[in-house]
């Protein structure tokens, strides 16, 4: 892959690649290492990029890179970063804003504590907006598996929301 092609196909999706890697690793430094390795692999495997869906292709490489690194070491189990600093919704009054921030923090922590299989389908669907078919390709599982993982992941997250709702309004 020429440098120009790398800049055209990979660099535009670097944020997405990092976001995905960050949710997989739950650690900034490790996510950076994963993305860096993935980019080197992307160049080596440039021939495997079919069509123009460079983003899904890059996700697949990021995922494989993370998996092979996680197998090679125990570093995949990284401490959770402290959640916080979420932007407040300006349309809400201060009390509502605080509540909203708490809910966002709580849900983010809930996603981080999901098993990796569930976590990644949530991230790819909700944050990256991939279709079921695209997720199936990235994660390399049948469509039905994507759907069941997504449904179960949402059930868990909704349970967290429900618990929080009950705390606020007993």
């Amino acid at each position: 892959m020429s440098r120009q092609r790398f800049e055209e196909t990979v660099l535009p999706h670097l944020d997405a690649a990092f976001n995905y890697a960050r949710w997989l690793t739950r650690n900034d430094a490790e996510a950076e290492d994963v993305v860096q390795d993935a980019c080197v692999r992307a160049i080596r495997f440039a021939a495997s990029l079919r069509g123009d869906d460079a983003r899904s292709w890059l996700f697949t490489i990021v995922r494989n890179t993370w998996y092979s690194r996680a197998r090679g070491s125990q570093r995949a189990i990284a401490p959770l970063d402290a959640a916080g600093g979420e932007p407040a919704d300006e349309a809400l009054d201060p009390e509502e804003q605080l509540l909203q921030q708490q809910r966002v923090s709580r849900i983010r922590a809930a996603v981080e504590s999901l098993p990796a299989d569930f976590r990644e389908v949530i991230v790819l669907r909700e944050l990256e907006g991939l279709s079921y078919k695209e997720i199936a390709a990235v994660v390399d599982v049948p469509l039905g598996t994507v759907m069941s993982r997504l449904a179960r992941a949402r059930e868990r997250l909704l349970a967290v929301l429900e618990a929080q709702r009950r705390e606020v309004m007993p």
Partner: protein
Amino acid sequence: MTCEEVERDLDAFVDRELEAGAAAAVGAHISGCLGCRGRVDDRQTLSRLLQAAPYFAASDRLRERVTVRAARANWIGQLARWTAAAAVLIIVVGSAAALLWPRPRPADDLTADVVAAHVRSLMGEHLFDVRSSDRHTVKPWFLGKIDFAPPVVDLAALGFPLSGGRLDYLARRTVAALVYQRGGHTINVFISPADDGADTGIQSRSDRGFHVRHWTHGGMAFWAVSDLNDAELTACAEALAREASRQGS
């Protein structure tokens, strides 16, 4: 459609992954079922909350690192591809060259001295005592300064213009040094009376990346030295030897 059937398709409905017909059926059920409507709302709330969480964007530092690594990997990849081909080529050309090429003799003390004198002349400011492209100016300059008359020939027509001369010191004796140019390269030609008078052909030597040509003719020993490529220095030496012998005869 029952609530159970709808619940099975709830995620696909929210994610707009249902076919048009199925989506319409779920939509119709939801409009009349508070329970299922609530479950759709829950999922949409969840989506909103997830998307409100900060997006982890790549840092500028990562972007830079990746670009650098990519450039390097790309280079290494190409290198690997060419290495095999290059290795074969080197073996073939190398074996042919070893068999066919006149091998320069290893550097001896005199060759090292010649190269050292050449380097000294380029590094210091003493390349010329007489600066002229006219051999009728350069040749008389040596008269009275040394006890021999070095042949001074003009090779401008052959692409090696004379640019001057000086006295130098080589192998514990004073020698005449003629300076020729070829492109950006300087050729020093050292001339002194030969120790024994027999004429020799042109011999090739190398030291530290400099090439040296040595020959003896008409009682004079010549050393031509330059960083010029082998072939051109040989051409220069051949022209010098030819013109000098013509002048001497």
